């Protein structure tokens, strides 16, 4: 145990020490922290009133424990997600994995050590999410001191089981699915898995509630009925809720003991699985498949292309072949629209096709504004643009000695973000035309505006990245981690487009589609020209001075 403790301490020290972080990073971290305080305050207030109103509406039917159920279920889902990615990178993809394996430790000790950082981060999230929520519930239900004692214990226990089970799942998959032969492919697979998981859960929950839709009233009037439904797939969430609903009763105590027992069981299972299977999954990592070049490929593979196309393909291949870029850029940029499609399709198939119906009631003018606002948000969060230069890392200097015009390099990067946005735009188009059944005219205007918005957001991201690119990375994740650039980009986009949307909304003459289209064409054209001019200026200033 002493050795495990040493390992854990070392891991934590390595992760959380401030050595090697630049002042810039420290300052921006401090700024972020200060910025978060009012935001956090706002969220907490919202949470409080949400819990309050839910309590008020559910307590007459004695269904108030649904709130607790929902709370435990949602944090469990969130913890599963966070754990999936942190455990994978800590257990399998971190650079230091191999150096620890060569040390004389038992597998379970290494697993415990490697779990320390992800687990502690999970407690951070736990403190932000669950602790205040339980507190608010206690206040609204005018609970006794026993409730708060139980709540504190359950707060401390809740992250353990999702963490342990997810980690076990990951270790299991890595051991048996035999995907670990190729590290890159595994990373991609896991990225996709997370994505599919969210959508899957969504479909599942929705289908389930649709089925039971008719019996809803019955469920609501029956005590604990609603709770059963909500927590069906997460037994610990159910036990925790019951225990907290009647803490001073025997049932409450029994359920609390049950949760404690399950938690201990989870930890033991986690250590056992780690001891058995962790090494077997890790040792297969590294290396890729070798192939032999075929003579008949030569002619096909040596086709002549314009430099811009060649650069574009190089960028695209890099994004598709680098797991971190693939998940952070491609999957992420598609996530928003695809998620939307899934929700809308399911809604409209059930009894709740109210959204389409609601939109039918809107004027074309309102529909257009809402669609455009949504598109701006969807395209604005695409990290392809704000990682344009940083993605190159230490290979950036290759652009400098090759006889390629700066304009071509920059344009190829703009085209990449534009192209990836095009995928999202296509998905949103399908929703607009087939699910929301907006008129072709509105769709066409929206499409043209979206293309311009896509180009503008691409430029904003690129300009910001050009200003202060992160080229000196050793792991691709550093391109995205701890950089404020995505937030900055969103803030600037908000400023740029809010003016346009406000004018469209407020000026009466823009109720007319012809005038609003003309106005948008003018506004977007102007923004585009200013952006292009500023970009050219920045490129002249910075392009040759960027060094890794």
């Amino acid at each position, binding site marked *: 145990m002493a050795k495990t403790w040493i390992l854990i301490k070392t891991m934590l020290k390595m992760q959380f020490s401030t050595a090697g972080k630049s002042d810039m990073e420290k300052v921006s971290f401090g700024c972020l922290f200060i910025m978060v305080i009012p935001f956090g305050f706002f969220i907490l207030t919202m949470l409080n009133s949400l819990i309050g109103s839910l309590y008020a509406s559910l307590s007459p039917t004695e269904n108030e424990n649904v709130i607790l159920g929902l709370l435990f279920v949602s944090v469990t889902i969130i913890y599963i997600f966070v754990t999936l990615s942190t455990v994978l990178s800590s257990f399998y993809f971190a650079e230091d994995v191999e150096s620890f394996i060569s040390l004389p430790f038992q597998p379970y000790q290494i697993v415990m050590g490697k779990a320390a950082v992800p687990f502690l981060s999970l407690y951070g999230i736990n403190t932000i999410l669950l602790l205040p929520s339980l507190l608010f519930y206690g206040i609204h239900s005018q609970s006794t001191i026993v409730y708060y004692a139980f709540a504190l214990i359950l707060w401390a226990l809740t992250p353990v089981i999702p963490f342990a089970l997810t980690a076990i799942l990951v270790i299991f998959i890595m051991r048996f699915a035999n995907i670990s032969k190729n590290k890159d492919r595994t990373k991609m697979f896991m990225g996709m898995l997370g994505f599919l998981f969210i959508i899957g859960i969504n479909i599942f929950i929705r289908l389930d509630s649709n089925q039971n839709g008719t019996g809803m009233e019955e469920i609501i009037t029956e005590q604990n009925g609603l709770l059963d439904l909500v927590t069906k797939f997460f037994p610990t969430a159910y036990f925790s809720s019951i225990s907290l609903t009647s803490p001073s009763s025997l049932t409450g105590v029994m359920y609390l003991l049950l949760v404690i027992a399950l938690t201990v069981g989870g930890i033991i299972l986690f250590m056992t699985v780690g001891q058995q299977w962790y090494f077997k999954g890790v040792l297969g990592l590294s*290396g*890729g498949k*070798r*192939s*032999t*070049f*075929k*003579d008949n*490929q*030569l*002619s096909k*593979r*040596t*086709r*002549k*292309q*314009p*430099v811009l*196309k*060649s650069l574009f*393909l*190089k960028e695209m*291949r*890099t994004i598709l*072949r*680098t797991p971190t870029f693939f998940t952070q850029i491609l999957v992420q940029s598609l996530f928003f629209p695809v998620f939307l499609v899934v929700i809308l399709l399911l809604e409209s198939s059930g009894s709740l096709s109210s959204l389409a119906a609601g939109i039918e009631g809107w004027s074309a003018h309102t529909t257009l504004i809402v669609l455009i606002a949504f598109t701006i948000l969807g395209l604005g969060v695409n990290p392809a643009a704000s990682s344009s230069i940083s993605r190159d*890392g*230490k*290979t950036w*200097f*290759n652009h*400098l*000695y*090759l*006889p*390629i*015009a700066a304009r071509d390099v920059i344009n190829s990067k703009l085209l990449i973000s534009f192209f990836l946005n095009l995928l999202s735009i296509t998905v949103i188009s399908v929703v607009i035309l087939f699910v929301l059944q907006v008129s072709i005219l509105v769709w066409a205007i929206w499409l043209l505006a979206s293309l311009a918005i896509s180009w503008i957001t691409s430029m904003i991201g690129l300009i910001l990245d050009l200003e202060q690119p992160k080229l000196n990375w050793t792991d691709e994740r550093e391109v995205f981690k701890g950089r404020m650039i995505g937030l900055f980009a969103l803030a600037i986009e908000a400023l740029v487009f809010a003016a346009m949307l406000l004018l469209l909304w407020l000026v009466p003459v823009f109720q007319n589609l012809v005038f609003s289209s003309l106005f948008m064409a003018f506004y977007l054209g102007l923004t585009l020209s200013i952006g292009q001019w500023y970009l050219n200026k920045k490129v002249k200033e910075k392009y*040759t*001075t960027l*060094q*890794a």
Partner: protein
Amino acid sequence: MIELTNLTKTYPGKTAVQSLNLTIPDGKIFGFLGPNGAGKSTTIKMMTGILPMDGGSIQLNGKDISKESIAAKKSIGYVPDRSDIFLRLKGIEYLNFIADVYDVPKEVRETKIPELTKQFGIYDALDDHIQTYSHGMKQKIVVSGVLLHDPDIWILDEPLTGLDPKSSYTLKEMMREHAEKGKIVFFSTHVLEVVEQLCDEVAIINQGKIQFQGNMKEMKQQFKEDDNLERLFLELTQNG
């Protein structure tokens, strides 16, 4: 022809290259010799347009690198000292990318790519990602890329470090052939022996300043006569 005039570069708190003057005629293998930290890589980075210079000028085949940069860069091929090339590309994709950039005709690609890569023994690996290459293989794919577009000026930064004897021999042969075609081969090294084997002419750089320029015979003469150079000579032979 390469002409460096009063070339100067200062890093914060340190002058890496100071008023450097060099003229290199066509058809020569030119060695740029100096101990670690002498300023060789800094000079080469300025010659290839990677690093902006603080003073002076660089003419490559009559084109100024900072004024007509694209035209000047078209006439050079560069083999960097680090192998940070586009790792996610496959070997063949990298070579075709280079060929696109330098406008190499398709027929030339189809004949030269197999020829060069077979000479280096990396032909079979052309369909693998460069990321999976060893340091030597990366070096070889970059050299293949350079020879594919057959530049008038070939610049190499410490090209022989990390190559096995056979590859080292092949590379030296290629450098000789290139110079025999009337083109310039400019390379840096910290090993005196390499210069003696390979070069027509040599410049010795130390602490950012040129200490000597001339042919091999003159160099040996100077080493005997000049105290400063003799000390440097010892440093360079011990380094190797």
